[in-house]
């Protein structure tokens, strides 16, 4: 047999392998649309050993990185039965995150925690896992429908509203001009925070003179804020939907020589580069903690896997207002756990 033939054989084998392998399997197609999973998840009790899969939308964002860390930290602390926390990064790519979930299904993890990149594209993947009997805890962003075990997240609209009320009651008591830097256009939190903010300042003679998207990141926000300060040097308060964007806007004001502008952000991450420290240092007037839900997710997992009790379908996490007065205290508290 010549070398060529061997190559041919290898080619034929590789090309047809997947097809041949496909014969004889019977995986049921999912047609179910009811809330109950087709296979009931098992509860292993306190003596079980558990593998948890975490599908994170994008580790590159500090907020999500912190979420992963919280999950790992509290899993160690509260749920010693967990042998493995496997975190996979969706790289801000819906298809990649769907593949990650599929791999978790193949691996048969005992519980899936997912923070979806976007709702609609990941609904099917979450549904698949849920229907295979894997309990699914959805964090931060919801998926469509009701085929998951529990959703835990903050209320973006409420946070936006509280930020608006803070501006109206503390910073611009007699009305004034506000600039807004939004998150990525098309993302749900950006819209909700925007809507909530408007609600919070309603009827208080506060004027949003301009609103631009900073796409959640510092440098984009800085560019947009520079332009906004040029067009409206009389802006008194800058509301940014994320702390990094608020910091970017702060830098823009510094370079424009505007010393009296106040900045309000959202996220309040308890990390050295986070918003709480920025409030403590006086760069931001306030920020609002958007909880990662890592701790609550592990608590839910414990309830479900170890205590064999039902968990609430939806759990909304409260925010906390952080100003100079309580910044140090909140920082310590969030890092104690």
């Amino acid at each position, binding site marked *: 047999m010549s070398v060529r033939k061997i190559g041919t054989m290898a*080619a034929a084998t*590789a090309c047809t392998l*997947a097809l041949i392998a*496909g014969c004889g399997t019977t995986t049921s197609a999912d047609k179910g649309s009811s809330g109950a999973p087709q296979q009931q998840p098992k509860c292993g009790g306190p003596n079980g050993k558990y593998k948890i899969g975490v599908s994170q939308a994008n580790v590159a964002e500090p907020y999500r990185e912190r979420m992963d860390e919280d999950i790992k930290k509290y899993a160690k602390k509260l749920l010693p039965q967990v042998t493995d926390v*496997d975190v*996979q990064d969706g790289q801000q790519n819906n*298809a990649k995150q*769907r593949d990650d979930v599929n*791999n978790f299904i193949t691996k048969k993890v005992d519980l899936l925690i997912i923070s979806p990149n*976007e709702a609609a594209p990941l609904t099917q993947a979450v549904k698949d896992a849920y229907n295979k009997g894997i309990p699914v805890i959805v964090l931060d962003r919801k998926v469509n429908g009701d085929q998951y075990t529990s959703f835990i997240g903050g209320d973006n609209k409420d946070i936006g509203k509280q930020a608006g009320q803070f501006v109206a009651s503390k910073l611009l008591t007699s009305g004034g001009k506000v600039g807004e830097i939004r998150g990525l256009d098309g993302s749900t939190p950006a819209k909700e925070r925007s809507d909530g903010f408007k609600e919070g300042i309603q009827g208080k003679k506060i004027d949003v003179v301009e609103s631009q998207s900073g796409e959640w990141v510092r440098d984009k926000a800085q560019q947009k804020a520079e332009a906004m300060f040029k067009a409206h040097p009389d802006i008194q308060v800058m509301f940014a939907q994320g702390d990094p964007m608020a910091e970017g806007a702060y830098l823009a004001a510094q370079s424009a020589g505007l010393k009296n502008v106040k900045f309000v952000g959202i996220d309040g991450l308890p990390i050295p580069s986070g918003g709480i420290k920025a409030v403590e240092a006086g760069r931001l007037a306030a920020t609002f903690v958007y909880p990662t839900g890592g701790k609550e997710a592990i608590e839910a997992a414990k309830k479900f896997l170890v205590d064999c009790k039902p968990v609430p379908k939806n759990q909304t996490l409260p925010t906390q207002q952080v100003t100079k007065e309580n910044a140090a205290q909140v920082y310590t508290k969030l890092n104690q756990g």
Partner: protein
Amino acid sequence: MNAAKGLEEQLPGTRSNGATVIATIFKFQSLFGLVAVFILATILDPETFPRPDNLLDVVRASAENGILAVGMTMVILIGGIDLSVGSVLGMASVGISVLLAQSGFGMWPAIICVLGVGLVFGILQGIANARFKIQAFIVTLAGMQVARGIARIWSGGQGVSITYQSQGGPVSDAFAFIGGKTFGGTVPIPAIVFIVIAVLAALFLRFTTFSRHVYAIGGNEKAARLSGVPVLWTKILVFGICGLLAALAGIVHAGQLNNGDPNDGQTYELDAIAAVVIGGASLTGGRGGVLGTVAGALLVGVLRNILALRGVNSDLQLIIIGLVIVLTAGLQLLRPASMRA
């Protein structure tokens, strides 16, 4: 054994009698690489990895990249590059979603319309490159921006979800077939689309005069022109085919996610180029083939799968896959001199 004929498409008929084992391995490096990674994965995870449902999922997960890479192979064979495929995929996924969910198109009219958009987009890039002599890199870099912009406008900047009539939405349930499975719910449709496209492209590159023109242009464009090869038309058509396949990948993408998002498909062009390079094609053109590319795409797919199954840290996965790309590209330098000519 039909694959036997497909093998020769790599380079129109170079050497056989004197072919050494080494030469064969280099020629089909990605195939041997795929087999090696496959065996390694089976050893590392004998329980989960070789399960048929997992293997089929690997093919499904590689489908979009694989389809893009088949088109990219043709462009790279003529010595070009197409950086726009990721954006065209995003544009097509948005397009099909909008047409189905908002404009009330039927499934086939919507698919044909979106494929047409991809084809025309590719042809326009081909004209800019071949007729107006703007470098492919630059033309498609611009095309990448333009397609992304069109996707944003077409979708209004928002993800457009596809909800089916059975769920109370506007979209015909027939389209759900693309994201589904067949043969009793075992074989994912995207995997089938991928394999069909790969086989068609391999046959096309083996048995048409057009393919000879493609290789000739990549091998030596001046010589091809002087030999009477219609260089202009061939190049334009190659870009058109690449755009068409990118649109097809976009339809598969939307079908799988039930959603068209204007930001989807970013950096997919780089994954496609990686698959082509791992497949042994030369970025200067004239050398490579669909078989190698498909094996390259599957190699990356198997690698991703086994790394995820073993719970390897996501950051480490990036490094490992990067190293594999450099390694396979570096292998080309070790090719025997006689094969480089």
